[in-house]
């Protein structure tokens, strides 16, 4: 296996997730929604697993959600993450459909104060990696503990 030279940056041209990264570059969080049954289908799939339709529209969502779970990563498992540790990698359930869980980073937080199901909101930050050329804007999340009604 040979990885792209910009690994672990995402390939923003890869068709199944291209719209996700294009939306992030505009400062939007977008998820594919089935045109037939209106369900969000995540991860992107050519066929809706609820109704079998093959027609989707990438739909901008509010960017509000709940922190489903997370890990405070203290060891750099790959050298490209050496400058990032410790960091909080986690899973956020979006407000529109909690079954849609986004893998993300939790930023601007005290990791020790994080609690499951805490309300979070999206922010857009550059992904940069040690020794890797380029950057990609990505949706990350911050806790909004003191603002329970969101942004």
């Amino acid at each position: 296996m040979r990885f792209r030279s910009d690994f672990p940056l995402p390939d923003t041209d890869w068709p199944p997730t291209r719209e996700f990264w294009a939306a992030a570059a505009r400062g939007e969080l977008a998820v594919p929604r089935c045109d037939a049954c209106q369900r969000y289908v995540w991860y992107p799939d050519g066929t809706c697993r609820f109704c079998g339709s093959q027609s989707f529209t990438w739909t901008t969502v509010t960017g509000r959600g709940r922190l489903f779970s997370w890990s405070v990563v203290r060891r750099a498992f790959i050298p490209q993450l050496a400058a990032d540790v410790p960091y909080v990698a986690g899973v956020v359930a979006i407000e529109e459909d909690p079954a849609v869980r986004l893998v993300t980073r939790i930023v601007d937080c005290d990791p020790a104060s994080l609690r499951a199901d805490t309300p979070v909101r999206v922010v857009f930050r550059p992904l940069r990696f040690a020794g890797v050329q380029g950057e990609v804007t990505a949706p990350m999340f911050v806790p909004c503990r003191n603002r329970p009604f969101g942004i």
Partner: protein
Amino acid sequence: MAADWGFPSELEDVAGEVAIAGVGEADHTKASGRTTKEIGAQAIERALADAGLTPRDVDGIMYTPFDGQQFGADDYRAHFGTTHEMWVSTAGGGMVWAGSAPHEAALAIRTGRARTVVNVFSVAWATQRADMVGGPGEVHASELFKQNLEVPFGWFPQPVYFATIARRHMHEYGTTSAQLGAIAVACRRHANLTPAAVLHDKPLTLEQYLASPAICDPFRKEDCCLISDGGGAYVMTSVERARDLRPPVVQVAGVGVGNSRTRVYWSQQGDFTATPQVFAAPAACRMAGIVPADVDVLACYDPFTIVSLMQIEDMGFCAKGEGGRFVEGTALHFDGGRLPYNTHGGMLSHAYVLGIAHVVEIVRQLRGEAAAQVKDAEIGVYGGYTGPQASTLVLRRR
């Protein structure tokens, strides 16, 4: 939680048709410079010797295609100097397939496609890690959805996924680090009693576990499996033929396979803190005509402590969510624990050979030949796991 996130595979009833007549382990080591195929060959040599069979007696071979390096039929003929035709199945190997291969082999033996089948699995991931190739991380990083939606956020490799699952399990059920630690300590104690275990000479107390730093909260190093060179093999044949080989006969009593609809995408699984054992174990127990309380010794594919805990719950040894309290103290120890578990040390402390050594250990337990022997073990179970799938293999001494 509605169990609609997965489903059992429909398997034919093969209860009591085949036996595991020989088992072998290769040397389990840290980086050794050996190749995957060399390790596989050694495991098969030892399994044949254990069964009292010659290379010509084996006319079927099972392995996994997943890394393209496994010991297959051509390797078999070249290594053992045979020329005979062999039934070949790529539904074998370690992980889930270490548990489900006996079902496939039983069908081949029933229909006369093979008489005696070896299932083999080996890895040289400790050696390959030095070159930054191979290994479990690379397998995941090369999956494109992971590469584009998970890895960029640093939700990678597997310790991070399963730390996230453990955190949620703690939230939902009150599971504690000390309870995860009890699993690591039990496995280490068993490894300390098992000469072939990589961590044979490294004791671990719960106090040491709790005092060790987190590498990815809530996981410490001791929650995570080893990276090893090693492997194993086991030989299957009809129960009738096995009666002419070394006693006692260890029968395949039940096999089950469960599947997650969200496949390798752990983040999306409907029940985030469960495994497809929910679907596999009931089917295997039904085929075997047993209930979990009948099981004398259990070995589960254990990449992380939380995967042991979830499988113990999902296989029905306790109610969902009670796994933490169930495993506390010495509950999993071979000598008097309520559920002797990974009595060779598992992937945490014996070797990361992806479950094949677990099946070898269960067979030895049922023969009364294990290093940390459970008294009078008659029914033993292997729980296989990949994430997308789980398998349950029920073995019984007759």
